């Protein structure tokens, strides 16, 4: 789109994509040698990277405050899981990647539709009101799922086929990073940053804030839905309690820790925060206490994030 305008950052984004896909291919070649425990954690990291980077588009680049990312993840996860549960017994095993891809995309699409539903109220709301509406939206999705017999209601959805591999996870994570940074760094994407910096000034420059906000919500929700699908086919079990308020907070903390609007920082934060509970395993009873203290201390000491040193004014690094 605009590679001539900003060649350095576009190559930056492409570098991420190539590195990510290469990593995915290489790692999945050796995945048979990995211990199952480490393999599981690696997949968790990949899924959290997708979630954090997609939320970063909404909370970081566009400056909206969403507390409902787990809701989008739930929509995508349940949709994808239901599709592969229904379709996979009918088709030969050779078609498995096709089914998986279809399930993921369908989950993402439905989550994007939900994102549209949340994006529209955001036309009128900002700041903490928007935070509460997105929180409420996440809760509504949880309540609806909890009462839907066809997806197992409160007892959860069991027996989802294990399709998620390292290759899928990191390939899609790289794609998410590439897509989000390329989008934000394009001529069109400068509008996200403009809306985040000053909505009134942006609209007086002819930028339609409403369109950017809704685009951010729809795109962010799509990738959260994909992450949900990966999660479903990784854990092979979904329960409504796994998508509560706390899960949304987890993703928000990743974005804050990494620095709002800093894609590289957010990726590092997603990795650290996925590993942290595993490292703290022997102190598991204090884990959540430490975690909540971390949020408070972080907000007091470094509200701009741990990995931000030289934010260029108006720049969205790849």
């Amino acid at each position, binding site marked *: 789109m605009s590679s001539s305008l900003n060649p350095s950052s576009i190559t930056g984004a492409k570098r991420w994509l190539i590195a990510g896909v290469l990593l995915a291919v290489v790692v999945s070649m050796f995945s048979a040698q990995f211990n199952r425990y480490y393999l599981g954690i690696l997949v968790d990291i990949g899924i959290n990277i997708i979630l954090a980077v997609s939320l970063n588009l909404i909370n970081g680049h566009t400056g909206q405050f969403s507390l409902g990312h787990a809701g989008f993840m739930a929509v995508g996860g349940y949709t994808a899981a239901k599709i592969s549960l229904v379709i996979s017994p009918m088709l030969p095993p050779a078609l498995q990647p096709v089914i998986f891809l279809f399930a993921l995309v369908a989950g993402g699409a439905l989550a994007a539709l939900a994102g549209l539903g949340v994006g529209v109220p955001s036309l009128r709301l900002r700041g903490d009101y928007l935070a*509460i509406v997105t929180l409420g939206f996440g809760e509504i999705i949880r309540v609806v799922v909890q009462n839907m017999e066809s997806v197992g209601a409160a007892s959860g959805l069991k027996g989802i086929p294990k399709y998620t591999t390292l290759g899928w996870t990191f390939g899609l994570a790289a794609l998410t990073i590439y897509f989000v940074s390329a989008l934000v760094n394009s001529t069109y994407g400068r509008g996200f940053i403009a809306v985040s910096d000053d909505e009134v000034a942006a609209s007086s420059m002819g930028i339609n804030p409403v369109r950017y906000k809704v685009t951010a919500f729809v795109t962010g929700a799509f990738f959260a839905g994909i992450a949900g699908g990966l999660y479903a086919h990784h854990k092979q079990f979904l329960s409504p309690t796994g998508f509560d308020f706390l899960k949304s907070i987890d993703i928000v903390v990743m974005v804050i820790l990494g620095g709002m609007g800093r894609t590289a920082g957010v990726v590092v934060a997603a990795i650290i925060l996925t590993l942290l509970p595993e490292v703290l395993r022997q102190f598991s009873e204090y884990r959540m206490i430490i975690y*909540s203290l971390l949020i408070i201390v972080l*907000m007091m000491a470094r*509200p701009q994030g741990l990995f931000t040193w030289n934010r260029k004014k108006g720049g969205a690094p790849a």
Partner: protein
Amino acid sequence: MDWLLQQLINGLALGSIYALIALGYTMVYGVLRFINFAHADVLMLGAYAAYFLAPAVSTVFPLPSLTGALIVTLLSVMICTGIGILIEFLAYRPLRQRPRLTVLITAIGVSLFIEFTCQHEAVFGADTKPFPQLLPVHDFNLGGLVIGSNDLVVVVTTLVMLAALWFIVQRTKMGTAMRAVSFNQQAAALMGININRIISFTFGLGSALAAIAGILYALKAPGIDPLMGVQPGLRAFIAAVLGGIGNLPGAALGGLLLGLLETFAGGISGLSNYRDGIAFAILILILLFKPAGLLGKATVEKV
């Protein structure tokens, strides 16, 4: 008809509790313009304070009795007032000049910290504890209607608290200062109002109401646990927004409306499973069509 009246009574009792909690949210929002997520946890701490105080108090004033209940309530109100002021002093005061979202996330952090600390074995433990009977219970039968004495206590206490709060805010020097800070913090400071003291006072007052609401809620609930504040807290927050956040009569009205709506929805079979979702659906609709709330004033953003 009987069914309607019965639901009305239950709804009023539930709505009164929501109203009490909502007042705390709305007062803090009025002076500091942020949502104090930890408010719901102060409510829980109020109930636990009463739980631990009740055996000690009953050695002097045997429970259940009115005097005993009043003393237990008074003591836990004092404890919660202190906790509320302490939370503001430690967590929110250092962030006074920061963007509101920073404070909002800190508030979520404080709320999670209190919840997880209290769930630890060495503190309260995660299990549900039976709440002691503070007041003698009696059911009044009026025709086909059953009015529990606890429901009456809840409604009467709320009315008394509303009147007291109205008096404090409208008729005392402290209340006038509170309204001034809420109207314009800088101008209030220039008039010689000690902003920090007013904000501490507001947090104390809100936490005192939360403690009372916590005890009233515990009287009606099957038991208390460290997460007991989360659901009523969310509902009360919605009630505050429904009435127009920052507006005291609005919070009371919103609480009552939400309590009634929820009770009626819960009484209709098929809808009852969606009770948790209904409150949020109402919130989203209100924010879409009347973002300032029922009694709130619409503000125009100036450039």
